[in-house]
């Protein structure tokens, strides 16, 4: 498969559970594609070099920095962004615990952190504190400090354990 004659890439993939398609510039990052082409501005961009984690999305369930991926690389894959975590008006348990714990200040890093926590808890439902630190090490928060964030993640893990 290659770029079409008009210079665009006929992108098709699954976005937050729905099949979508759009013709995009093949050198557009997945981050820009999500924000500009699909209007999903929950995923943030800051460093654009993988240092900060604010652009995390799940691709086939695994956490990835969308700022370092080109949109065509998710061809046929399944992408979940922060917008896809809630079920209707019911927030994901990780989102609920972030609110309860006040684990948000300016909020810029929050979508990336929640997506990272989602990936971690899907792979490992009962992480130790050390495993949490490794699972979240790619995400930077510059305002709250990390204690409330870790507390929110641990409470989310506890609650997920109870409801299973």
């Amino acid at each position, binding site marked *: *498969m*290659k*770029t079409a004659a008009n210079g665009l*890439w006929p992108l098709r993939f699954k976005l937050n559970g729905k099949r979508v398609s759009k013709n995009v510039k*093949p*050198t557009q*990052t997945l981050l820009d594609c999500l924000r500009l082409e699909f209007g999903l501005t929950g995923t943030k961009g800051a460093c*654009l*070099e*993988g*240092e900060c*984690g604010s652009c*995390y999305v799940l*691709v086939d369930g*695994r*956490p*990835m*920095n969308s*700022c*370092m*991926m*080109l949109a*065509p*690389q998710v*061809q*046929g894959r399944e992408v979940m962004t922060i917008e896809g975590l809630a079920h209707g008006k019911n927030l994901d348990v990780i989102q609920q615990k972030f609110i309860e714990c006040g684990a948000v200040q300016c909020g810029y890093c929050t979508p990336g952190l929640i997506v*990272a926590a989602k*990936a*971690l808890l899907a792979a490992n439902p009962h992480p130790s504190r050390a495993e949490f630190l*490794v*699972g979240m*090490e*790619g*995400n930077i928060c510059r305002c709250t400090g990390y204690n409330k964030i870790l507390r929110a993640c641990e409470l989310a893990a506890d609650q997920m354990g109870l409801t299973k």
Partner: protein
Amino acid sequence: MFYQPKSIGEALDLKAELKERAVFIAGGTDLVVLMNRGGRVTENLIDLTHVPELRAIDRRNGAIELAGNVTYAQAAKLPAPCLALASLSVGGPGIRELGTIAGNLATASPAGDGSTALLALDTEVELTSVRGSRRLPLEKFFLSYRKTALAPDEMITKVMIPANYRSDWLKNGKRGAVNISVVAVAVALTQKKEVRIALASVAPTPMRCRKAEEAFGKGADARQAAEIVRSEIKPITDHRASADYKTHLAGVMVRRLLEHLK
């Protein structure tokens, strides 16, 4: 033009046709960062993320064989301790899911964590083009600063690692994660009890310290071997640390690893 081949054969045909006018892209952790900074990479990108055969990990003839697109996340689970630890020391979870071992080799950064661990493990790479395949010891693959033996039509199709080495890894950087090394060291012990010492960030490419290895093999202790390492490496002063500091640090790290490897 952006190409997304579905097989190694298709990818090699494209590269044979386009040569220097195309670059392979997999994890994008170097190339897309460069593009984000406004750098122009090439007019053609050949995306390898949709070639399933490049994701395989096989055991064959006492070696672990990684196909070209095996990621750090995959390598972090391999029974090759220095490579697993080095892989886990790369970036954060998102980068480890994207970045590939072969990409780390092709970029040939002097700070390459994967490259350095693989050097200590006597790794060989398989380079393939439409002309055929050749095997090369990793030490011969790195030519100079960010220069490799890859021909313009070649791809790293396999990374072959002896499965039975004992090994260990230490990385020192400015913080605990998402961290480029000030100095990193991989040591390994072959089944014949020969030691291998490889360092990152102390020379234009990741390097083996042959003189220290030889001296250790002939009975030098860890402290003496570490002193030889200090004389073999050629670090530069940069924004991460001074050359003097890196030299001192490298010796300390090598000594600690060798003391624990016995």
